[in-house]
């Protein structure tokens, strides 16, 4: 018998591609193409939020500019951007570790990725969502003008786009940046902010779960130079989550 005893091989070395594949490289390529098709559906889903953003921004540009300056802190957004970029870089290094057959490199880099993702979510929940919830800066019908601009003389107007609701608008609100007063369409801005960032945050959370799964696989020596398909696809997913944040950050926090 010239056949090597499989007990001597690590799982990734003994990996056999599915019987419908010519070889392991074809299998990896096919899996990646499938992942890209899935990512295409993800992009199209998020583009719905971007479209809503564009439509309402076009309708109420000043209101949105003021609202993004008032309701969101760019420092939090910038810190989260840097953290997500770092996590993307480390997951690239984790894939490099798999290609070089270095288990420690995979595990440490995935651990840093997890820490970055946890940092992102903790900042998002603790420093953005929770204070906003306390202040009533919630999406849609739950929105309340809690304590803002009550000292201003408010003119009651009927907004034909707000489904016949009566909304209060402080006169001359936009000429005093230091005295922010709520404007008629703040709740639309916050609705788009909440739905887009919450969907993105859910993706980060799902990413943490699948990266944890990848860490278990790496721990069991299932990733190596000849087989790391799921790690590769998790990396693609994670980079897409990063790209979406690259667009969300300036749109929501800066411009």
């Amino acid at each position, binding site marked *: 018998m010239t056949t090597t005893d*499989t007990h001597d091989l690590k799982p990734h070395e003994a990996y056999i591609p599915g019987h419908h594949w010519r*070889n392991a490289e074809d299998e990896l390529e096919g899996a990646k193409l499938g992942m890209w098709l899935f990512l295409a559906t993800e992009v199209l889903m998020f583009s719905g939020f971007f479209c809503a953003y564009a439509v309402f921004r076009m309708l109420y540009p000043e209101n949105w500019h003021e609202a993004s300056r008032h309701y969101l802190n760019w420092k939090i957004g910038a810190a989260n951007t840097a953290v997500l*970029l770092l996590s993307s*870089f480390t997951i*690239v290094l984790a894939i*490099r570790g798999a290609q070089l057959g270095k288990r420690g490199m995979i595990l440490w880099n995935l651990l840093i990725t997890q820490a970055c993702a946890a940092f992102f979510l903790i900042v998002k929940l603790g420093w953005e969502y929770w204070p906003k919830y306390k202040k009533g800066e919630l999406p849609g019908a739950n929105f309340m003008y809690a304590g803002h601009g009550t000292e201003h003389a408010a003119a009651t107007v009927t*907004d034909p786009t707000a489904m016949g609701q009566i909304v209060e608008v402080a006169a001359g609100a936009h000429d005093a940046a230091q005295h922010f007063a709520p404007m008629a369409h703040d709740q639309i801005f916050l609705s788009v902010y909440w739905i887009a960032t919450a969907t993105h945050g859910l993706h980060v959370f799902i990413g943490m779960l699948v990266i944890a799964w990848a860490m278990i696989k790496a721990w069991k020596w299932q990733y190596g130079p000849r087989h790391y398909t799921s790690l590769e696809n998790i990396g693609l997913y994670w*980079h897409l989550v*990063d790209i979406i944040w*690259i667009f969300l950050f300036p749109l929501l926090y800066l411009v």
Partner: protein
Amino acid sequence: MSDAHAPDFAGFDPHETLSTDEYKHFHVHVTPFWPMFWVFAILLFLTALTVWSSNVHGIQVGNTWIAFSGLVHILIAMGIAVVKATLVGAYFMHLKYDKPMNTVVVSATIFGVVLFIGLSMLDLSSRALVDPIQSGEIYKGGNYKLYAGSNSDETSPLARKPDANAAKFAQDEAKANAGNHALNEEHATQEPHSDAPAEDHAPQPH
């Protein structure tokens, strides 16, 4: 049956028609460290640039101050974001090293997104051309401004000029009021902003 054709690593070969070499074929591009590190550094730099650019309100060219409108800020921020996304896609997601099929999928996706958002914007910005009644609804800064009495500020190139029809209407009305009553009543039954020739509204001599 014969051991000579058995692969040397797995105990059995499901691909009896393939040679062992074909079956073991696996050549992938090993991710390099330094290019990826520099891409990461550039991404951080571009993030800082985005933050900085959002606080630049204009540029000084000689004696001329060119103010940046909100649209300019959006275009700058989105331009940088597209560059960042391209870097992530090309290097981190290694589209640069992949077979071109994945890039085809990405291109089709981008085409779909541009179609989706672009046509929505086109619709929104051109509704008033079709239906003047709608023009009051689609309005820079929101409709509340009409009622609050504040009507002047910088205009986005995408935003329509809201007062075009109103000014024309006021002009027509002024001309009609200056004319005799019969003409005025006749005019009132017409469209308020019809394209009737100006001679019809000219004041008649008493």
